[in-house]
């Protein structure tokens, strides 16, 4: 088991593995998202209250979920890099941050588009919207801190530390904002027991969620390869790999 862990800290191995995984992830993502889009947009029944407007959930909810998932990946990978001094951990964290920030932005934009017909306004100071916005600020802070250092090693470790501190803070921020003001509908899928959604609506949503996860994995692989190449540009294997 440990040899596997050690191999993950070797840049050429990570570079090749990411290249090998990427097409599978991308293909799976394309299949799952295609099914989710067709079933969700064309076949799922309209909501009895929100009509067809609810269908934006098929983009909104997976984006919001992925925004948190990418943050967790970033913080855990950064923590691994910080504790065991594994450079590839920092590479994963650096690759994950912009993707997560994009998902956060997507969740905010789709949320505000959804809010317009439902709440009558693009922006409401609703807890989940607000905590998503704060999450975006956290991402911006981590990315800005990483790029502020001239020495990339220090930047990596400082950003990793901030990401870990932010991970402790995310639940606090979330609950503080929930108690502060509430307008958003309650959780739909993640309730223990029976979900509040009929299967015909739920299956496309789960497919979209799965597809978004795979898509995230695929983009992470692409970005990770770029990160590894950039970080290892002085080493011999990179020159061999890109053949120059």
């Amino acid at each position, binding site marked *: 088991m440990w040899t596997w862990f050690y191999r993950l800290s070797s840049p050429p191995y990570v570079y090749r593995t990411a290249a090998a995984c990427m097409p599978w992830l991308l293909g799976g993502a394309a299949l799952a998202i295609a099914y989710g889009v067709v079933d969700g947009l064309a076949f799922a029944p309209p909501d009895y209250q929100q009509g067809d407007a609810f269908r934006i959930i098929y983009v909104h909810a997976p984006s919001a979920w992925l925004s948190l998932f990418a943050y967790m990946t970033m913080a855990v990978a950064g923590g691994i890099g910080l504790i065991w001094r594994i450079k590839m951990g920092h590479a994963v964290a650096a690759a994950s941050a912009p993707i997560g920030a994009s998902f956060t932005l997507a969740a905010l934009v789709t949320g505000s588009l959804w809010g317009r017909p439902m709440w009558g306004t693009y922006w409401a100071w609703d807890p989940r919207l607000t905590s998503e916005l704060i999450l975006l600020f956290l991402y911006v802070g981590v990315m800005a801190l990483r790029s502020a250092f001239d020495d990339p090693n220090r930047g990596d470790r400082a950003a990793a530390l901030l990401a870990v501190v932010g991970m402790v803070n995310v639940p*606090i921020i979330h609950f503080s904002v929930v108690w502060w003001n509430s307008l958003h509908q309650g959780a739909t899928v993640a309730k223990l027991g029976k979900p509040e959604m009929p299967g015909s609506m739920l299956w496309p949503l789960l497919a979209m969620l799965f597809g978004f996860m795979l898509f995230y994995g695929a983009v992470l692989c692409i970005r990770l390869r770029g990160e590894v190449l950039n970080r290892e540009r002085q080493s011999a294997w990179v020159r061999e790999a890109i053949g120059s």
Partner: protein
Amino acid sequence: MRPGAGTTLLLVLRRELLLGFRRPDQVVQPLVFFLIVTTLFPLGLSVQLSLLREMAPGVLWVAALLSSLLSLEGLFKSDADDGTLEQLVLSGQGLYVIVVAKTLAHWLVSGAALLLVSPLVATALAIPWAAFPVMFLSLGLGTLTLSWLGAIGAGLTVSLKRGNVLLSLIVLPLAMPLLIFGAGATDRAIAGTNALGALYLLGALCVLTCTLAPFAAAAALKVTME
């Protein structure tokens, strides 16, 4: 023989306070900033007392957060510039003891000093006398928590040339729960309802940061000082 952790804490605390009193303008300037910012809001919005009273907690808290941020940059910066911080790191004492001492000193010259000025601002914003105890308590807990959070941010940005804006960018999102609970408690006290819930939460946040933030800030200093 090396002094114990308690002695180190007291020595560093004493040094920091002494430095603060020797440079009184650095203590006073954030307070003046606090006064000026709170003056801006009535000028920009309205002088109706009822309206002022409604927005007073928010104004008070935003101004307090901003003015505490102003002095945060200096928390480790000047010591890092003249090499004192390196000596402290090399002294063999746990770095977190030094972080605790410096942060407490920072709170005493910024947060606690802000408490002394707050009645003035509160009166100007038409906050009733009855709300003063809750306001004091919430500001005290809140600024102390902010000092701990700020120590992490200051540690992370200490070796950067233009760290000030980045420091705010890092610390302010983390400090948003403080604003929510602090302004919430003050708001309830003004309305005459029970503010204990928000105060308890502020206390919990304060305890949490007191226990965890020194280690995070020490780790941040190690990362940036190496």
